[in-house]
């Protein structure tokens, strides 16, 4: 879409080059197929090698582990472009990079990093992230999945996880579990679980009306026996998975802008070509107001995420700022998508157009990785100093 505020001038040449490369890939390889995938309820696995070759997985992790070593703004722009295609594609990349590669990088042993990160960057190993449980979504500290250390140092894992993106196609799962019978969230540790391990099973959740071009699964772990080396040695307490979520939420704040951009562009193009009452519908005030609001909200969101990225690169950003961006940007993106769909009239309900697909997707994105309401309470706590959680 038109760079109305010349935000490009605030990007480096490399950042723009990264965006253009991913944009071209999405235009040529994702957008032509994604509508059908969505209707079929199928994640387009065939694009994984292309995404890996491009280098989008864990792109902000260091080159020594086979990653691209990009800064966080460039990483954010990748998320934006992927979600301009579909939230399911961006979700796949978010999970692989921010929720699986990042914890291995941050909490893993050198051996774990050397083994997993290059193969995950190349798409050879696909990962998923198991934190949420059927009864513990917004409140992960209540989780009941438990790992028991055996006398030989190995672990026995039992429990279940739900709403796990990539779950059924993953080769490896990062599973968060309490340990050794301790029910406090301080005992939470992360485990790298090969999905072929006996006792581990994943099955797709059916009947989704959102994120249909993405695999969402339920994980069941029954007496899953893991070697000592499965533990992420530097993980400890609920803080560890929350750090991962901060990474992923950062990417989401950028990603949803991409979805909103796609809807805005589609609505704008439609408004200038669709003729009703002998003039393009873009000539009517009500559609102009829609477009003006969409544009305004998208630009504001872009500025928020860009500034957040600069803070992240400086190492001074806070999880509360990430909540701010995730909350605001998901909110405006869902509004933009809905208004775009309405502008498109009856055509807007067809899979041929992107807006309703994005609109339905964004309801999930609005809800996952900390719901809109939870981020509201995080901001409330940040400004009042009073927690609404307990």
């Amino acid at each position, binding site marked *: 879409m038109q760079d109305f505020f010349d935000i490009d001038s605030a990007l480096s040449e490399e950042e723009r080059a*990264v965006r253009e490369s991913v944009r071209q890939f999405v235009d040529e390889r994702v957008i032509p197929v994604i509508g059908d995938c969505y209707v079929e309820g199928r994640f387009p696995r065939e694009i994984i090698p292309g995404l890996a*070759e491009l*280098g989008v997985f864990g792109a902000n992790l260091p*080159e020594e582990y086979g990653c691209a070593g990009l800064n966080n703004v*460039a990483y954010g722009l990748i998320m934006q472009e992927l979600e301009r295609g579909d939230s399911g594609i961006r979700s796949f990349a978010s999970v692989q990079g921010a929720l699986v590669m990042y914890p291995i990088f941050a909490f893993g042993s050198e051996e774990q990093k050397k083994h997993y990160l290059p193969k995950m960057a190349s798409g050879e190993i696909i990962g998923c992230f198991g934190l949420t449980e059927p009864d513990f979504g917004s409140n992960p500290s209540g989780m009941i999945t438990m790992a028991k250390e055996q006398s030989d140092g190995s672990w026995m894992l039992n429990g279940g996880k739900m709403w796990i993106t990539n779950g059924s196609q993953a080769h490896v799962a990062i599973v968060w579990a309490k340990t050794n019978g301790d029910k406090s969230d301080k005992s939470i540790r992360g485990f790298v679980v090969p999905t072929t391990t006996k006792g581990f099973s994943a099955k797709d959740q059916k009947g989704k009306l959102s994120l249909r071009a993405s695999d969402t699964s339920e994980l069941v772990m029954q007496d899953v026996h893991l070697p000592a080396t499965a533990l992420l040695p530097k993980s400890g307490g609920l803080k560890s998975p929350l750090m991962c979520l901060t990474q992923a939420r950062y990417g989401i704040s950028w990603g949803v802008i991409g979805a909103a951009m796609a809807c805005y562009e589609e609505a704008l193009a439609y408004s200038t070509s669709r003729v009703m009452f002998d003039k393009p519908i873009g000539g009517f005030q009500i559609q102009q107001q829609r477009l003006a609001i969409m544009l305004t909200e998208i630009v504001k969101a872009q500025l928020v995420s860009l500034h957040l990225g600069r803070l992240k690169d400086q190492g001074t950003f806070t999880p509360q700022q990430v909540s701010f961006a995730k909350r605001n940007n998901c909110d405006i993106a869902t509004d933009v998508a809905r208004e775009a769909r309405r502008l498109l009239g009856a055509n807007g309900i067809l899979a041929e157009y992107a807006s309703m697909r994005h609109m339905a997707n964004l309801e999930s994105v609005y809800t996952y990785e900390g719901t809109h309401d939870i981020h509201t309470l995080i901001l409330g706590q940040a400004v009042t100093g009073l927690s609404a959680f307990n």
Partner: protein
Amino acid sequence: MKIAVCIKRGPDMETRFKIAASGKAVDEAGLKYDLSDFDGYAVETALQLNEKQGPGETVVISLGPDVVQEQLRKALSMGADRAVQLKSDSVPVDGLAIARALAAELQSGGYDLILFGRQAVDSANATVGPMTAELLNLPCATAVSTLDIANGRATARRELEGAAEVVEFALPAVVTVDEGMPRARYPSLKGIMAARKKPLEVKAAQLGEERLTLEKMELPPERAAGRIVGEGPGAVPELVRLLHTEAKVL
């Protein structure tokens, strides 16, 4: 092989162009630029040749103001080894002036192969490649759709209207690439980072006298309202006549 690829920066052709106030250029506001499409194929061709045939060097050259560095960097991020900008205030419309500047740079480079896109997306002249070949006194094959190189000899297919020819020639040579040659790869994110560290040399372009100059640019007249040529197969001759004489697409 040591391969030079001469590339041009060009705008996205999907744009609805406007003419700048000067009347001598398109309005650049809001235009998106990229490697001219066939030039992208040429870069890809060079990279694949060197990837397949062992150690070599791919050098990309572009003439113009500093903005062309963006396209040189793109070629570097695709995998080219180094870049040369032949700096000029603008890109002349005189293809021979450009060819002179390129030939001056290429002359002593020791290149086995010099590649061009068949034509640029914007000016669409298809002149600079063969002109450069002539100035360098090198064999030249234009608009090739396949290119095979073995033992210092090249075999290429050239598409003609409604026909094709297969030509053979020895290297060093100049080749301009057409549809059928490999499409440009996506620059990988690692490639983009690596490109920052690759050499990009800036030299003054030696254009010489320009004998072709731009008087003005304008938009073509609005499309005439469509019309029904006729009914059934009997309308075909009239349609073909219109496509030839009026639409000039046949």
